[in-house]
C-alpha cells in the first residue's frame, strides 16, 4: 500500500513539472503599463504636404506643427518608427528631418532628380528612384545598388514608382512601350534578372505614390491617368483588392486600415470611414 502511495506521489510530482513551462503568447503578448501604452494625448504620427507645406500631426489630424512652410515641397515620407521625415522640393536634394530634435539633420546628396522616395521598414534605410534606378542609403537592403529596374524587361520601359518591402522584395510600377503601351505592377525578390521570382500584373494605368506598410500586407498607389482612383493592393494577391474614390493615401499596419486623401480632406478607413477637413489647402502627399 505504501509503495503504491509513493508511486502516486512521484507521478504527481513529475506531472507537476509540466506546470513549470512558460506560457506561450497567443495574441498581443505581455502587457505592462510602463511600456507600450500610447500617450493619452495622441503622438504626432501623420505627415502630409498641402499647398507645398509639410505638416506633422496626430492621428486625429489636430495639434499640427509645420515642418516646412516654403510652399515648394512636393513629396514627404515618414519612417515606421515615426522618428524621421523625408521631404523634397523641386530640383533640390531630399531633406532628412529628425522628429525628436525638431530640425533638419541632413540631406541625400545628388537626389535632385528623385521622383519617389521613402524609408524601408527597418527605419534606417532610405530608398529613392532616379531615372529608373533604385538607390538606397543606409544599411543594405538590396543585393546591389543602384538597381536598374529596367533589367527586368526586354522592352523599353519607364519606371513610375518603387518601394522595397521589409524582406527586400521590390514592388514597382512601370509603363512598357510597344505598339500598345502596357502598364504593370511588379513584385520581384530582386535577386536576379530572370523572370522566375517575378510576379507581374497588368494594370489599367501605372500608378505613382506607392506606399507599403511595414506589415507587408498593403500597398496603395495613386492613379496617374486622371481616373482619380486610389488603388489598394495586397502584394502577394493576384489582383487589386479595392479601388476607392480617394486620390491617394497611406496604409496603416492593419490590412483594413489606411488614411485616404481627397483634395483637402483626410479620411481614416477602418473599413468604416471618418473624415476631417484640414483647412491647409489641397493635399499632394501623405504618409503614415
Amino acid at each position, binding site marked *: 500500500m505504501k509503495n503504491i502511495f509513493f508511486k502516486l506521489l512521484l507521478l504527481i510530482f513529475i506531472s507537476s513539472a509540466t*506546470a513549470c513551462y512558460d506560457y506561450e503568447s497567443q495574441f498581443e503578448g*505581455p502587457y505592462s503599463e510602463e511600456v507600450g501604452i500610447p500617450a493619452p494625448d495622441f503622438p504626432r504620427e501623420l505627415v502630409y504636404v498641402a499647398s507645398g507645406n509639410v505638416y506633422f500631426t496626430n492621428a486625429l489630424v489636430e495639434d499640427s506643427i509645420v515642418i516646412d512652410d516654403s510652399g515648394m515641397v512636393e513629396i514627404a515620407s515618414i519612417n515606421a518608427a515615426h522618428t524621421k521625415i523625408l521631404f523634397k522640393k523641386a530640383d533640390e536634394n531630399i531633406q532628412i528631418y529628425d522628429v525628436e530634435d525638431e530640425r533638419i539633420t541632413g540631406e541625400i546628396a545628388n537626389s535632385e532628380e528623385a521622383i519617389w522616395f521613402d524609408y524601408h521598414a527597418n527605419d534606417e534605410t532610405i530608398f529613392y528612384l532616379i531615372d529608373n534606378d533604385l538607390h538606397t542609403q543606409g544599411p543594405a537592403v538590396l543585393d546591389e545598388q543602384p538597381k536598374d529596374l529596367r533589367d527586368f524587361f526586354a522592352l523599353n520601359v519607364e519606371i513610375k514608382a518603387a518601394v522595397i518591402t521589409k524582406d527586400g522584395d521590390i514592388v514597382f510600377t512601370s509603363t512598357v512601350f510597344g505598339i500598345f503601351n502596357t502598364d504593370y505592377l511588379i513584385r520581384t525578390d530582386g535577386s536576379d534578372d530572370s523572370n522566375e521570382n517575378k510576379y507581374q500584373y497588368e494594370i489599367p494605368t501605372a500608378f505613382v505614390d506607392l506606399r507599403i506598410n511595414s506589415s507587408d500586407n498593403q500597398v496603395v498607389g495613386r492613379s496617374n491617368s486622371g481616373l482619380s482612383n486610389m488603388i489598394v493592393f495586397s502584394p502577394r494577391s493576384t489582383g487589386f483588392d479595392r479601388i476607392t474614390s480617394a486620390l491617394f493615401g497611406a496604409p496603416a499596419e492593419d490590412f483594413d486600415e489606411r488614411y485616404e486623401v481627397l483634395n483637402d480632406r483626410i479620411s*481614416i478607413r477602418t473599413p468604416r470611414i471618418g473624415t476631417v477637413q484640414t483647412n491647409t489647402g489641397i493635399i499632394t502627399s501623405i504618409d503614415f
Partner: protein
Amino acid sequence: MNKILFLLFLSVFLPLASQSQPPGYLGKRATLLFNFSSFPAFEGPTQNNRGISFSTERFGESEQGLAFNYEFNLDFSYVVSRMRSLSLGVGQYYTGVVTDTRTRSRPTLLEPNPSSAEDFHSLFNRLNVRSITLMYHKFKGEKGALAPIGNQFSYGLKYLSINSEIVDKRTSYRLSGGSFFGHEPLNLPNKTSFLLFKMAFQNTQIIKDHFVIKMGIQVGVPLHYRYWEAVSNGKEVLYDTGDKENQYYDFRVPVLRRIFFHELLRFDFGVGFLLF
C-alpha cells in the same frame, strides 16, 4: 494549615506540570522540512494555461487537459509539548488566472466624442504567490503518536502575497478604428494579498537516523467574506464605487477565486531533518 494546603497544591499540580519523558523525538524538538504539495488543476489554469475547466472561460485556443497545481514549502517546526508542535513555513508557487476589464474608448476620427463606448480586454495573468504559514499541530497520542512523529491534525493561518504579470492580452475595440488609436491604460493593480485558514491531516515517520518523511492532505479556505460574495454573486455587486474600484475588483475577485481552487485541496509530501 498552610503546609497542608501547600502539599495539596503540589500533589495536584506537580504531576500535571511535570512530564515523565521530555518532549521531542530522542530529545530532538526542531525539524526542518522541505515540502511539496500538489493536486490536479481544476476551475483555473496553471501558469502555462493548462488544466481542467468546467465553467470558467478559456483563454484563447490553448489546449487544456490534466495539469497540476503545486507549491514548494520550507517549514520549521518546534515541539512545544509531548503532543503539540508549532510550525512556521515559507512557500512559493506560480499559477495563472484569466481576468477581464474594460476601459473607456479613445476618440477616433469616426467617433471624436465617444460617450459611453468601452474597449474590452481579456487578460492572461501569471501569478507569483509567496506565502507564510503558521500552523498548530496536535498529535494523536491514542494512536501512538509522539510529537514530532505520528499522526497529527493541524490548523492555522496562511498569508499569501501575490504579484501578477500580464503575459497575454486580447483587446476588443468598441469603435471602428479603435486599434489605430490604442486604448487607455488598464490601471489594474498587480499586487494583492489574502489570508487563508488551513487544516491538514498528516503523518510523520522516521526513515533513517534524523531523517523524516511527512505525508498528508491539506485544505485551505480564504477568509474574505466580501470577495466571496462577489465570487458567488458576480463582481457587479461591488460595482458601485467608481472606476478605480471597479478595476481593482476586476483583478482581485478572479484572483481570489483562482487562489481558492488552488489552495482548496492538496496532497503533500515532505522530507525533513531533525535538527536539535
